[in-house]
């Protein structure tokens, strides 16, 4: 386990060492989450690096990553713990044979031996040497009742199991929550967290990200790709491409051995960048070529 960062600059530099290009705002939020031991709630468009920050933090601090993917109907037995009913049943049969007394059996049936730990309980297990990074991903996909389960975990880092007692983390885990904002998360959850909106990066930062994430990409191609995507985000599309899409597109272009952008190669690869038929149809009719022309002109004036 590595020490947690001592300043915002330190956070920024160490994230960069793991190829995560964070802006100052995000670095501040991460720094505060680490220092104040508060969960960090990240909201933003899909593909802007929310999940990635948790992954990078776990590498950077050399801590295990525990991921809880949310979905509708996720409940305690899926997220926190479940009793091992099969083993309990066998235990009952064995007890019958041995003729054990009732109270002893009841105590034994609901002991730690029969407890199956799921992500949340794993993350706060007091027997852990190293507090992990807990990623609660796409919280907006879970339904509202699930948010209520989280409240105790987020504020006290503990879970109360009625048959067993309260399990509390020795050292609080680093908690990252993400949401794509398909619905509003309840204020009670937000109140327990630090909040940061992860927006699309500016051209300079996106360029740096592409260079780091797509090794071997020619400078000129990277520049054009970034400029093109940045222009695309100014248009009113149904779904704007995120950084994840930019990186995928750059990789796709590399696979096709493209050195610079041209209208034909853009047409062939639009599906990597845009995920709605309406958006693609809109780009096909000369619009893409026009944007490319703008990009070329802009780079010429810069050069």
């Amino acid at each position, binding site marked *: 386990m590595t020490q947690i960062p001592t*300043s*915002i600059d330190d956070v920024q530099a160490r994230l960069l060492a793991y190829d995560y290009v964070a802006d*100052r*705002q995000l670095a*501040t*939020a991460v*720094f*505060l989450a680490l*220092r*104040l031991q*508060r969960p960090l709630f990240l*909201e933003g468009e899909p593909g802007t690096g929310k999940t990635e920050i948790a992954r990078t933090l776990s590498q950077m601090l050399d801590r295990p990553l525990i991921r809880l993917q949310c979905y*509708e*109907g996720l*409940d305690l037995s899926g997220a926190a713990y479940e*009793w091992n*009913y099969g083993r*309990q*049943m066998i235990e*009952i*049969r064995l*007890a*019958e044979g041995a003729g054990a*007394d*009732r109270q002893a*059996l*009841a105590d034994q*049936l*609901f002991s730690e031996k029969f407890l199956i730990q799921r992500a949340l309980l794993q993350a706060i297990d007091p027997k852990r040497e190293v507090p992990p990074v807990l990623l609660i991903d796409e919280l907006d996909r879970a*339904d509202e*009742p699930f948010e209520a389960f989280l409240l105790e975990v987020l504020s006290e880092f503990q879970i109360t199991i009625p*048959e067993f007692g309260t399990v509390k983390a020795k050292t609080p885990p680093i908690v990252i929550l993400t949401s794509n*904002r*398909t*619905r*509003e998360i309840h*204020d009670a959850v*937000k*109140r327990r967290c*630090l*909040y*940061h*909106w992860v927006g699309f990066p500016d051209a300079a930062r996106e360029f740096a990200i592409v260079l780091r994430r797509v090794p071997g990409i020619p400078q000129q191609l990277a520049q054009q790709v970034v400029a093109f995507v940045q222009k695309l985000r100014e248009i*009113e599309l*149904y779904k704007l491409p995120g950084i994840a899409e930019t990186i995928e597109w750059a990789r796709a272009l590399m696979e096709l051995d493209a050195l610079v952008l041209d209208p034909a190669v853009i047409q062939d690869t639009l599906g990597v960048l845009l995920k709605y038929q309406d958006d693609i149809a809109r780009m096909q009719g000369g619009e893409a070529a026009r944007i490319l022309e703008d990009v070329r002109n802009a780079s010429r004036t810069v050069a």
Partner: protein
Amino acid sequence: MLATRPTRGHLAENVMHFARVLRSAGMAIGTDRVLLSLQALREAGLASKSDFHAVLSTCMLDRIEHRDLFDRAFELFWRDPDLIGRMRAMLLPKIRAQDAMAPQQHENRRLADALFPTPKVGETPLEPPQDELEFDASLTFSAREILRKADFDTMSADEWRAARRALAQMQLMFEPLPTRRSARATHPGRADWRATMQAMARHGGQLWDMRWRRPRTRAAPLLVLADISGSMSRYSRMLLHFAHALGQAEARVESFVFGTRLTRTTRLLKSRDPDVAVAQVVRAVEDWSGGTRITTCLHEFNQRWARRTMDSTTTVLLITDGLEHGDVAALGLEMERLAKSCRRLIWLNPLLRFEKFEPKAAGIRAMLPHVDRFLPAHNLESLEQLVQVLSRRDAPDRIH
């Protein structure tokens, strides 16, 4: 880093004032957030103004909509914290606007009626108490019948009030949708192993005492999109009352109104009193009874709101006459998108009050293929019919 103690005292005070400014501008910032900010500032230090901004925004913001407000307030306030007085004065119009939206009790008709009842001579009580029912049952019945069939647009003020009252008392039923959560059940279904094991442990493993669970249901969420342009205004107003009644019952209701612009009114309609709630909507929306641009507003809804306020289980009530003069092809596309992102799309059109109505207008013809139900909504009777449709468990039946 924070240098000396006196500075910190001053800073703490200023942060607190700043939080108060934000609060008066409508952001909900509790004392815990102020304390958290101070704690955070101690950790992060005050190296630069942008860091200071980042720290405060991380601690005080909790939704992206407030960021602009926060940024502007931050700029003004921390340029010179002594500007507090002027600052608050600048934000005052906002506060006033909020005050104006607060329910003004003396204006509330229903409350006034309840406090100072002035029974008119010869007027039949429309909602007679149960024991009176026997005496003038026939009269009341016919009065109700007339009220049920009366067109909202031509109602007298008294009728209008009675209709609103009838609406609030309507028996509302919702289509129950199964969820992925479960509740304890008495009849065999899914095994509840946890409860079974507990019961068995209690009996020392002697008795095989099976416990069960069943899937829970919830009312299908609703979304109301109401056209409030000139010809639609009276109907939409009554439908907002209807939406309010639905929202006060168990269903989750989102509401939007549109004329030339689209406005989200969900929060305004949350007020418990229906008159206050609808009055708030009317006051907040500027283009009440103006023109209408259906295509543009539907486009904006699809683009900005659909993915955040509805899901595949939502029933959408679209209230408009469908008389669009602009781009009809685009209107069809927007309707298609709307229909595809919800469970049922019910179009309420007051034009259906005319018996020989035929969908001849180009706008109506473009919208119709994408609608599951096409219903009238001009009197109480038609709204009762709508309640029936909402409560039914039938599969969507697209009309063509």
